[in-house]
C-alpha cells in the first residue's frame, strides 16, 4: 500500500499475473501492478437507482482486501462486475489486464477460469456430489480426470470435507456447503479469489479455519477480495478495508500489520 499506483499498460500486468500457490519459498509481498482496477464505475439495474456509484479503486497482486458495508451497499454487485456476471453502466474495469466492461463472448470464460468465486448463495449443483461440484472448475479447462480427482481430494481435505465427498449439497449443513463453494473456488489456484460472505454460516472456530485458508491463498500470491459484515473478523485480520454505503465507496482504510 505504500507503493504509489503505477499506471502501466494493463496488458503487461497480465503477463506478470501470478501462478499462485505453485510458488514455494517466502510469500510474495503485496505490491506491483494492480490486478484489479475500477475507474469511475457505476452500476444501475433500474433507471435512476444506482447500486454502485462512481467507484474507483485499485487492488494489487497478493492483497487481501475486505469489502464491508451495510446490506444493500453494493458489495455483491461490485464482485459481479469483476467476473463479468454484470456489465457496468459507466466506467471501466480492468481485471487481469482485461477490460471487463468490454470483454466479449469468448473472453468471459477465459476470465472466469482465473477468478475463483465463493457466491453468497453458494451456487452448488444440486444433482452432483460434493466431489463433482468441486471438480467442475477443473473440468471446464479439461484437466485430466485422474489429476482432477487428486486435486479435488486434496482440496476437500483442506476444507475438512473429504469424508463428505460423495454426498449431495442438500445433505450438507450451510457451513459445509460454504466450504464446498470455497473448495471449488480455490481448487484451480485462481489468480483472484472473490469471496462473498464466505464465513456467514460458520461458527467461530470454523470461521477462523476458513479465513486462515483464504489468507493462506493470499500469502501465496492470490489476490483476495472478501465481502463481510463481520466487523470483528475484519479487525482480526487487520487488512485493507473498503467500505461501501449506498453504492459509494466511503472508506478505503489501509490495513495494519499483516496477520
Amino acid at each position: 500500500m505504500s507503493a504509489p499506483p503505477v499506471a502501466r499498460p494493463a496488458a503487461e500486468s497480465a503477463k506478470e499475473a501470478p501462478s499462485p500457490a505453485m510458488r514455494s519459498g517466502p510469500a510474495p509481498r503485496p505490491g506491483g501492478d494492480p490486478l484489479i482496477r475500477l475507474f469511475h464505475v457505476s452500476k444501475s439495474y433500474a433507471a435512476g437507482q444506482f447500486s454502485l456509484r462512481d467507484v474507483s479503486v485499485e487492488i494489487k497482486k497478493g492483497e487481501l482486501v475486505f469489502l464491508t458495508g451495510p446490506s444493500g451497499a453494493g458489495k455483491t454487485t461490485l464482485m459481479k462486475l469483476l467476473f463479468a456476471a454484470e456489465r457496468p453502466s459507466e466506467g471501466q474495469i480492468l481485471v487481469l489486464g482485461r477490460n471487463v466492461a468490454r470483454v466479449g463472448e469468448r473472453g468471459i470464460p477465459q476470465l472466469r477460469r482465473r477468478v475463483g468465486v465463493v457466491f453468497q448463495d453458494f451456487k452448488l449443483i444440486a444433482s452432483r456430489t460434493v466431489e463433482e461440484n468441486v471438480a467442475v472448475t477443473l473440468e471446464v479447462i479439461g484437466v485430466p480426470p485422474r489429476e482432477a480427482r487428486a486435486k479435488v481430494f486434496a482440496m476437500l481435505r483442506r476444507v475438512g470435507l473429504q469424508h463428505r465427498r460423495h454426498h449431495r449439497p442438500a445433505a450438507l449443513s450451510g457451513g459445509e456447503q460454504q466450504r464446498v463453494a470455497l473448495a471449488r473456488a480455490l481448487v484451480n489456484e485462481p489468480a483472484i479469489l472473490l469471496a462473498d460472505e464466505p464465513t456467514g454460516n460458520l461458527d467461530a472456530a470454523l470461521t477462523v479455519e476458513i479465513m486462515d485458508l483464504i489468507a493462506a491463498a493470499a500469502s501465496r500470491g492470490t489476490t483476495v477480495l472478501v465481502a463481510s459484515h463481520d466487523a470483528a473478523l475484519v479487525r482480526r485480520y487487520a487488512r485493507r478495508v473498503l467500505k461501501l454505503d449506498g453504492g459509494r465507496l466511503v472508506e478505503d482504510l489501509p490495513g495494519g500489520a499483516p496477520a
Partner: protein
Amino acid sequence: MTRVLYQLYYFVRAAFAGLRGSPLTTGVSIATIAVATIPLGGLWVVTGNMRALLDRFGEELQLTAFLDSKVRSDQGRSLAAQASAIPGIDRVEFVSQEQALERFRTRLGGSALLDAIETNPLPASLSIALAEEARAPERVAAVSEALHQLPGVEDVAGGETWIEGYGRALRLVRSAGMGLGLVLSFATLLIVANTIRLAVYARRDELEILSLVGASRTHLRVPFLIEGVVQGAIGGAIGVALLFGIFHVAVPQLRDALELFLGWSDPSFLSPRNVGILVVGGAAFGLAGAAIAALRTRVA
C-alpha cells in the same frame, strides 16, 4: 490437444449424466423418433419389395419387333445389328420366318394342323433382351419407340402394360412416402427440439453455474448435442426393431392378400444397410433437434 480429448470425455460424461438425470424428456425424445421411424421404415419395406418385384419381371422382359414380310434374312441380320446399337438394348437375335415356324412347331408338339398350312404365316422378327438399366417401364417405351423407327419393323410387342401400371404405382407410393416423410420429419424435429429445450430449462441452474466457473458456450452445448445423437440412434433402433416385429407378425397373416394384390410371394425386410441408414437417420434427427434447441435457448 490432449486437453481437447479430456474435454470430449467430460462432454460425453455430462451427456450421459444428463440422459440419466432427466429420464422423462429422454424417454419422450426416444419415443418420438421411434414412432416416426415405424411408418417411414414401413413404407420403405413396401417400396423395396415393389422394386424387387419389378426387377424380377424385368429380367424376363423381352421385346419382339416383327418384321415386314419383304425383309430378307441378310437384311434382317443387319437390322439386328442396328437394333443392338439402340441404347438400352442388351442383345438382339434375328428369328427368320422358318425359325419362327420351327419354334412354333416344337411348342405345339408337331401338330398335324400345321402340316396342312402351305405358306408360312409367321413373320420374321427380332428378339430383344433389354439391358438392366432399361427395364424400367418408362425406358421400355422409349426403346420400343426407337425400334419402330427402324426400316422394316412393323410392330413391337412386349413390355406388358401391367408393368407400366405397377411402375406407376411404385412411383406413387414413393412420392406419397416422400410427402409423408417430409411431414413426419418436420413434426419429429419440432417435438424433439422442444423436448430437448425442456431438458435445457430443467438444467439451467447447472448451466448457469458452469458458465460462472468458466465454461464456454461450446462446453455448455456439446453435451446436449451428444444427448440428441444418442437419443436419436436409440429411437431409430427401437423403431426398426418394432417394425421388424410388426413385419413378422403381419406378413404371414396377410400372405394371401399380398400375393394377390401386390404379387409378393415372399416379401423381405429392410437390408442391413437400410436398417443402418434408419438408425443413423434417427441420430441425425436427434442431433438436429438438439442443435435447434441449443441455438434457440439462451444459456447463461
